[in-house]
């Protein structure tokens, strides 16, 4: 049904988006400001980006952030996919409902509490805070996002495909690798991208679990901003917005187009 685009709709849309994106747009614009004073426009320049590349502390933090994001999202993808598979396909086992409820708990848990409890855990087991602890922490909270994405895909596709694979002589592992995984691959990839951007974004949990030698970019930015906003920070933030936007858009594109197409093909393939 096509309805006329009323003034009311147009206004709501504009206001809503302005509300969401205005602050970011201003930040991006000011990252190209030639002046050192953040609030005074003095012409276009990319010099702060160059400046950024010469700042050792920021580069170190960027490297740590990237490492943490890649490693934690990869581990989270493996664990999250396994969890989703067991919860969707494992049949009935004792405590299944409890498990499937519990896996989503970190989605609604306040980050401060997750961070604090992880911190207490690391202290209790005597693990020195550093890259490893951030990776562990990020894996913990992004795993549930992966498993949500993957399980929605698993629910959608026909169980009998896996049965057919078993019937034709696959071991359960072989059936998973040669039938299930190719079918859910887009969901797994988009889960990975989601976990990656979540890790890149995170400030609260990282600040609980990072050590002195391992600061991530969000922590760096946050502490720098407390001393005053600099155009360099604006430039850095712009880059991060760019990366996160690419990640999120890629994830949603994959799930929208690839998964939709595969689901359609599957349904077509079952039709009689």
């Amino acid at each position, binding site marked *: 049904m096509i309805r006329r685009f009323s003034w009311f709709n147009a206004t709501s849309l504009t206001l809503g988006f302005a509300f969401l994106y205005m602050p970011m747009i201003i930040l991006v614009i000011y990252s190209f400001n030639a002046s050192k004073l953040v609030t005074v426009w003095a012409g276009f320049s990319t010099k702060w980006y160059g400046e950024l590349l010469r700042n050792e502390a920021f580069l170190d933090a960027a490297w740590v952030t990237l490492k943490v994001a890649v490693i934690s999202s990869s581990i989270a993808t493996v664990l999250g996919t396994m969890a989703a598979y067991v919860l969707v396909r494992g049949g009935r086992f004792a405590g299944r409902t409890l498990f499937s409820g519990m896996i989503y708990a970190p989605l609604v848990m306040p980050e401060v509490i997750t961070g604090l409890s992880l911190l207490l855990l690391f202290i209790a087991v005597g693990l020195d805070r550093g890259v490893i602890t951030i990776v562990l922490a990020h894996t913990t909270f992004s795993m549930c996002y992966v498993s949500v994405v993957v399980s929605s895909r698993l629910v959608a596709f*026909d169980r*009998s*495909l896996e*049965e*057919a*694979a*078993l*019937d*034709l*002589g*696959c*071991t*359960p592992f*072989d*059936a998973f690798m040669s*039938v299930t995984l*190719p*079918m859910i691959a887009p969901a797994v990839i988009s889960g990975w991208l989601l976990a990656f951007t979540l890790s890149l974004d995170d400030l609260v949990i990282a600040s609980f679990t990072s050590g002195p030698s391992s600061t991530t970019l969000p922590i760096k930015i946050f502490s720098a901003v407390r001393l005053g906003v600099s155009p360099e920070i604006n430039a850095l933030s712009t880059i991060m917005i760019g990366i996160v936007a690419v990640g999120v858009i890629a994830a949603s594109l994959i799930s929208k187009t690839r998964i939709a197409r*595969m689901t*359609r*093909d*599957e349904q*077509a*393939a*079952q*039709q*009689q």
Partner: protein
Amino acid sequence: MAQSPSSSVFAPWDDPTKKPLIRFEGVTKRFGDFTAVDNLDLHIYEREFFALLGPSGCGKTTIMRILAGFDPPSEGTVWLDDVNIAPVPPNKRPVNMMFQSYALFPHLSVYDNIAFGLKRSPMPKSEIDGRVQEMLRLTRLEKFARRKPHQISGGQRQRVALARSLAKAPKLLLLDEPLGALDKKLRNDTQFELMDIQEKTGTTFVIVTHDQEEAMTVASRVAVMDNGKLMQVATPDRIYEAPNSVYVADFIGDVNIIEGNLRPQEPGKVLIDWTEGEAPIRAEANGGLTEGTRVSYAVRPEKIAVSAERPDDRANVVQGKIIDIAYLGNISTYHVQLPSGHMISAQMTNSRRIERRDFTWEDTVWLSWTDTAGIVLTQ
């Protein structure tokens, strides 16, 4: 048509020395509190072509899934070659199944779908291609080998599913409605192919079909099911000529059912009083039936002759009026109403052209049949 158990006829179920390939012993399958298969006892012999027939939801697919190993029975044991198969996982069973939903792998081409099982069998790599080509030829899919399942038609998909399950030449092949989407010609050809494959490889087939004619053509024995229970297991001709219940008689082909009270005569002969003002039906029946038993008398339309004159050599003769005629090409079915209100169908082959047919609507005709034409059923 009747088969006598002689050495030349394939009838291992009549031979007490033959061991069945599959034995169901008291097998029950429940889903929650719903019983899909109810206390099933069934023997299937090697090289059989065993057909499962029954209305939708009666448990046919469930039986297949128990054999393939996807659903363990809730109770009872299934023996394959004297081995209890309960602990054997599906991938270790010498059984392949063609799924009712086909379950083709959408990400693989037709070729790779068919080769999928072979690649996981002991067959040497060099022979796999030949085998796949053979299967493609058999199912006439050569042209579509490179296509993905969503790029071919429904009937073609069904053939891919069939080819994939046939490729490994398993000991036991389970086909869940294998030919439903094929046109009549292709279906006939494929039926003959299946029988041919069986001749050559000695595979045992269990096939689910909704098509009675198919079951009658290909099956060595037919099992008619209802609500998870076996109603009758017998050769196609026995099922047709000697159904053991009204349900089976009614399910297979057309039948006239007349209810009445039994009056035993000399051994093997009975009379059935079925309505006021008509002579009792004369029929043959085995002993053990007592006077006054309520019975159903079943007689097939093609056993009833239609004539303008009263025939005097037939055991059963009634008169009625033609209400409807269904012209089916080679045969016509006459629906005749008797004075008592009973509707009887009678079938005649059309040896004459349509405009010279003998009878038309509203004609009063005689229906007649012999005392061996119908059977007496007590359930």
